[in-house]
């Protein structure tokens, strides 16, 4: 039986990247329904943003007051999106305090815990935003065509790209703050939390 003393003191070992990746994947796979709901929340917000943005791009001649109204709509859609995403990610971190405490007891570093949540957020954010962007842009390209406007493929792709980037950034930002906070908690405090 060897102890840390015989291993030559305290070294800084972090597990390889795939350990965090597997943990994130397992967490998504096992809580699939829960995570699908989170992801569809992101998708809805992003779909709203993508559809407003598509309409804006499709409209050729715009009156000034129309333009400012569209800007308002886009801003609103982004706020809606942010609130929804923050809420879901906050929930998904806080309901797992106990798991975080346990993993800390097993020797996970704070950065490992944050890494797992980061990867989960990137995965959920990408899937959710991509679905939302495709649906929003696709649907409203059709709507635009019926109402006299038109959207070229590069335009549509750039809207989708922008929406996905915004979606992923928002999801990650919303997950990281509570994850960092949870990771820094003393393990005993994280284990005590009852949800």
């Amino acid at each position, binding site marked *: *039986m*060897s*102890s*840390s*003393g015989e*291993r030559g003191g*305290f*070294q*800084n*070992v972090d*597990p*390889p990247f795939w*350990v965090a990746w597997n*943990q994130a994947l*397992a*967490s998504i*796979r*096992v*809580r699939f329904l829960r995570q699908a709901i989170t992801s569809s929340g992101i998708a809805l917000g992003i779909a709203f943003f993508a559809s407003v943005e598509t309409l804006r791009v499709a409209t050729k001649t715009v009156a000034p007051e129309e333009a400012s109204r569209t800007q308002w709509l886009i801003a609103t859609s982004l706020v809606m999106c942010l609130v929804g995403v923050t809420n879901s990610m906050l929930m998904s971190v806080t309901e797992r305090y*106990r*798991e975080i*405490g*346990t*993993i*800390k*007891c*097993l*020797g*996970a*570093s*704070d950065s*490992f815990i944050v890494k797992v949540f980061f990867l989960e957020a990137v995965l959920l954010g990408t899937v959710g935003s991509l679905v939302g962007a495709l649906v929003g842009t696709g649907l409203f390209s059709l709507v635009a065509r019926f109402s006299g406007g038109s959207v070229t493929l590069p335009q549509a792709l750039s809207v989708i790209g922008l929406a996905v980037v915004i979606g992923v950034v928002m999801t990650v930002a919303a997950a990281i703050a509570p994850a960092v906070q949870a990771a*820094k908690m*003393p*393990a*005993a*405090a994280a*284990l005590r939390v009852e949800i």
Partner: protein
Amino acid sequence: MPNTAPAAHRKIERNARDVVVRTKDLAKHYGEGEAQVRALNGVSCEIYSGEYLSIMGPSGSGKSTFFNMIGGLDKPSDGSVFVNSVDIAQLTPRELAFLRCHTIGYIFQTFNLITVRTALENVTLPMLFAGVTPDEAEERGMKLLETVGLGHRYHHRPSELSGGQQQRVAIARSLANSPAIVLADEPTGNLDLRTGQEIIDLLRRLNTENNVTIISATHDHKMLDVSDRVFHIRDGVLAEIEDKSGA
């Protein structure tokens, strides 16, 4: 109480057995001012390598707080904890993580397995944190599961196992990196009598065979029969140390 025992006597005992955990005037307060609760009020003790120690005390006695302190799960308000002669208050979060990974194994009343992982993955996770290769981790993980009698259920997730089986997985997991100390917080608290007895026997067996120090917070009187020593904690102080090893 050895605190009051003659110094010479204590010295002999320490030479005979290595001290693995030592606390000095350990105290923990929660809250501030008038509302302050003194959960732990100056506990000094020595825990020897290879012993089976039970910590007894009613709810609210400071037993769990003491347990959390010596496990590096919480920071003391005052005093210090030395694990293998290292003052754990001086460690950075990363060094503390290393200590938890290599030197201490944890067992909880509520098992606390990672629900999204299989039994084997639960056992191998601490090894991966320690930098063991996946193949070696799997091999060692299977051996540990066989040791606790669950080799055949390695691919089951915690939700598919009974309470006793989950606690066995947790015991296997606590031994993953061959720790010097296993801390068990009421390991039989959520189990029926027979299963609880099995878990106690298993812990005692691992204690004798692997020479791992077992420190267990408990209410369970069955636990006392197998203990070498019993610490009685009351109102935040170490009220009595009972030596049962017959030495």
